């Protein structure tokens, strides 16, 4: 009630009442017929009168009217709200104050039931009240409603409500919407052009829609350009914008030329005129070329049986005799010029922002590739062991996360458990594989490749047998839902940010382990020269085992991260394995920084190609692989190539 009163008060302040304050009931009684049986056309009069008089309680009345909660007492035609009373009777409530005003039996009252069209009109009228509603959500809803269905009469109430809005964000939104409305419905050219110019700073979808609406064109055709029309451009038939066939079609649509006889129609006509196996004297069996058919049709046309067939030359002549153009619906050339200039500027800004968005996407994809490849950078890049089951380690990590979530329902906790557990599981698997298989195959890369293929096939099928073929979910905690919105175009989901951060953490961690710890020193020593390392008291077997375990364990953690972002399936590993190897090879084998460079290049490249070929990720992947094949031609040792003796190792 207080809300309604406040709103009514605000309305009073904002919309200066041209006539003396009038009681709500009396205004309604003036338009009693219109209130009781409103039609879409007549309701405008009632609403105008109500707004003009602006009695207290008018907003509540409009809301209740829209919600079909207004009743009329049949005896005197007065309007009331009702509340359930005793014994099936209804308690009447005064429409201005909401105070009880007696009771009435149900059959003494008639329900006022506005139809859908009327209710929409009422809603439109309500918007102006909602614009000053104390509840920010209501104000925001009102703005949305105006933006969805803009009209000229909303400009005034909208402008009036701007100054008093306490919320800066809503205030800005109102200002923008006011500018959009002014640009479209402003009173004079200067006002509109000014509004359009302010819009050129804005990249919102609504702004672009408004500008495009101002620039809406309709095609036209005539012998000359119509005088006074705001011509957008003239079209040359036969050009890319208007093919000759389309041009003729427009002539036909405008009634300026006879309809052409379609090929199918020719065929029908010929089939209908077969006499003794001949059409106009031509044997049916010879009618198997277009030229022959046209000849037969022409003969039929000469007899007057069918309308004449238009020759190509006649069509050309008809097209040449007319001009084709596109005209703006907006008659004011100054406005359309300003709008075009503004749209160009907006498009430029949108383009810049889209580039930023793609860059963010590319960065996020790069961090996923980096995560998938960094384990490989250790096993393949540093140790030189080619592990085709690396993808399956990623899958094992993801399934570990899935199993943990089955037992730990709290998503935050389960992820915190899953990350070290996935590391432990794949570390164990990696160490086992190194001991059982790879140890025997050092320095025999092709054999390693084949044996690990075997393991990859077996692990994949094993996962399929255990978890089934359908994708399993790995749910991210709620605080990773949603996205960071920078503006209407640039946005990035929190989960991608988390993966990005994880990738950075791992980069730091790996660099630290390899460059700053005893283990890293021993790893580098063993990979450079196992014999010399062994004579320095390092156990190469142990180091190889631990290094391989480390690389595999990181694959497991990457699996959890990738599982959060994509679905967990038994085949997810094979989706990443080729890309991962490409990342390492392109980046430069034996170097963590190279892997980073490779991942960035591939991520940026893939997003870039997806931008050029939107909605076709298959094409993007195809082109990317082709690019990589060519790239290796130019830099066979990758972006960050080892130099000197290390390169030969």
């Amino acid at each position, binding site marked *: 009630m207080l809300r309604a009163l406040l709103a009514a008060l605000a309305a009073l302040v904002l919309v200066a009442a041209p006539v003396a304050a009038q009681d709500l009931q009396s205004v309604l009684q003036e338009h009693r017929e219109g209130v009781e049986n409103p039609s879409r056309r007549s309701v405008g009069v009632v609403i105008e009168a109500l707004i003009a008089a602006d009695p207290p309680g008018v907003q509540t009345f409009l809301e209740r009217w829209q919600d079909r909660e207004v009743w009329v007492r049949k005896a005197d035609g007065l309007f009331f709200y009702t509340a359930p009373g005793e014994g099936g009777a209804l308690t009447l409530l005064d429409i201005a104050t909401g105070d009880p005003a007696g009771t009435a039996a149900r059959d003494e009252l008639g329900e006022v039931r506005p139809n859908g069209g009327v209710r929409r009109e009422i809603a439109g009228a309500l918007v102006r009240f909602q614009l000053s509603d104390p509840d920010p959500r209501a104000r925001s809803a009102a703005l949305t409603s105006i933006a969805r269905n803009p009209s000229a009469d909303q400009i005034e109430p909208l402008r009036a409500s701007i100054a008093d809005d306490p919320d800066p964000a809503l205030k800005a939104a109102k200002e923008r919407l006011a500018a959009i409305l002014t640009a479209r419905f402003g009173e004079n050219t200067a006002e509109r052009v000014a509004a359009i110019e302010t819009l050129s700073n804005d990249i919102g979808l609504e702004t672009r829609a408004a500008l495009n609406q101002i620039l809406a064109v309709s095609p036209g055709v005539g012998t000359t350009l119509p005088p006074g029309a705001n011509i957008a451009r003239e079209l040359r038939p036969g050009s890319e914008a208007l093919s000759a066939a389309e041009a003729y079609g427009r002539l036909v649509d405008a009634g300026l030329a006879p309809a052409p006889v379609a090929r199918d129609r020719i065929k029908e006509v010929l089939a209908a005129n077969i006499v003794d196996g001949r059409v106009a004297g031509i044997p049916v069996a010879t009618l198997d070329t277009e030229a022959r058919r046209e000849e037969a049709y022409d003969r039929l046309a000469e007899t007057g049986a069918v309308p004449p067939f238009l020759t190509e030359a006649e069509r050309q002549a008809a097209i040449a005799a007319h001009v084709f153009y596109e005209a703006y619906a907006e008659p004011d050339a100054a406005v359309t010029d300003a709008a075009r200039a503004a749209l160009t500027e907006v498009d430029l800004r949108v383009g810049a922002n889209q580039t930023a968005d793609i860059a963010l996407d590319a960065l996020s994809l790069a961090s996923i590739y980096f995560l998938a490849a960094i384990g490989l950078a250790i096993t393949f890049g540093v140790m030189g062991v080619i592990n085709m089951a690396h993808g399956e380690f990623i899958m094992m990590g993801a399934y570990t996360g899935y199993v943990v979530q089955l037992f730990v329902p709290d998503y935050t906790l389960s992820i915190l458990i899953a990350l070290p557990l996935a590391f432990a599981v794949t570390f164990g698997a990696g160490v086992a594989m190194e001991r059982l298989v790879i140890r025997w195959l050092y320095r025999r890369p092709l*054999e390693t490749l084949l*044996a690990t293929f075997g393991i990859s096939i077996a692990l994949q099928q094993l996962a399929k047998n255990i978890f089934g073929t359908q994708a399993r979910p790995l749910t991210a905690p709620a605080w990773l839902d949603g996205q960071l919105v920078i503006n209407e175009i640039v946005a990035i989901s929190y989960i991608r940010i988390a993966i990005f951060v994880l990738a950075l953490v791992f980069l730091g961690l790996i660099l630290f382990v390899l460059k700053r710890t005893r283990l890293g020193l021993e790893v580098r020593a063993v990979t450079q020269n196992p014999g010399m390392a062994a004579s320095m008291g390092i156990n190469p077997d142990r180091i190889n085992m631990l290094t391989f375990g480390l690389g595999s364990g990181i694959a497991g953690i990457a699996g959890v991260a990738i599982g959060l972002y994509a679905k967990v399936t038994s085949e997810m590993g094979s989706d990443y394995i080729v890309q991962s190897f490409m990342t390492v090879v392109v980046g430069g084998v034996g170097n963590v920084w190279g892997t980073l460079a490779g991942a960035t290049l591939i991520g940026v490249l893939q997003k870039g190609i997806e931008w050029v070929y939107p909605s076709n990720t298959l094409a993007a992947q195809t082109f990317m692989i082709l690019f990589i094949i060519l790239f290796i031609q130019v830099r066979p040792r990758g972006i960050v190539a080892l130099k000197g003796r290390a390169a030969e190792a």
Partner: protein
Amino acid sequence: MPSDALATSARPFAPRRSLIAQNPSVLWFLLALALFTLGVTVLAEMGLVSTSMVKTLGKTLCLCLVAVAMDVVWGYCGILSLGHMAFFGIGGYAIGMWLMYARTEIIVTTSLAAAPIPPTPEEIVDAVGTQIFGVVGSSEFPWLWAFADSLALQLLMVVLVPGLLALVFGWLAFRSRVTGVYLSILTQAMTLALSLWLFQNDTGLRGNNGLSGLQNIPGYDHVPQSTVSLVFFWASAAALAAGYLLFAWVVSGKFGSVIRGIRDNEARVRFLGYHVEHYKLFVFTLTAVVAGIAGALYYPQAGIINPAEIAPIASIYLAVWVAIGGRGRLYGAAIGAAFVSLLSSWFTGGGAPDIDLGFYRIQWTDWWLVLLGLSFVAVTLLAPKGIGGLFDLIPGRRTPDRQGDYGPDDGAWRREEGTE
């Protein structure tokens, strides 16, 4: 030892002997193949072997052919190509385009013949296009189908497209000295790119629907499938015999010695003055062409081809067959391909009985791949000579007239490479 192998063929006064005399296994293989072909034909005529079995055996022969090609490129030349099943698939697509076009054209012409006005050539092409590309929401003929109406041109494509692709790819890869595992990964990437490309609808090869109905040979609808399958079986056997002879000839002479030298130590061969890249490129391209021909014989028997057949995993299985059969001997590759692919269809087709462990029931349709994967690891580790190694156990066997190791290596246990 590799350098000895080179020295042998370079002996100035070594008597020149015939191919068969140098490689007695060629004769045995051809004899076995002939007996097998005749036996299957007789049994099929007697009705003891079903038409589908004849098709399976015919397909297996094609797989043997591509495996022999793979053996030459991998077992003899040391290039672990993971792209030869892609060349195989390209051959299948090339012949499939003609089969599908010609058959659809016959169907369309028959149905349009009932119309009152005879159809124009454009109308026939349009109708064929609608029939073929309706599933991907198009009716236009893509440029790829430009020669689809001509059997001769399309047969040329079977040879030309895999050959050119291998030539260009191989030239790029070998020129920049991409070797070993890098080359394997690169060929795998090429295969992946090709299959992804074929998966797209707008490529013009019906996306993931692939080409179907290839078992119906246009113009021979009246010939029963039992006859068609036998004809293809014979054609496959003939192709395998011809391919085997060709490769036996290629790997037996001086050329064979050079490529084996490349396998064992590429740098040394280069320093001896050979153009290593040219040899590798020749082997890579020749085997790709043979793989394409094998595919062109395989897919009319399979009846359908889709991009999944070209996925990298198919090429990996090819390597698995060759490794299990035994690298570095042509008959080993053929035996491996036949053995593993038949065993695989027996297991996955539900032919193998389930094993009841009481607490768990092992269904081989689910567990076959696990078994295959693990046995593959075991073969790589423990029996690098594969099934072919069993033949070395035959006492008094005549080994080829060549010094040095027959197979590429002794697998995991080989010493010299580890100390290089």
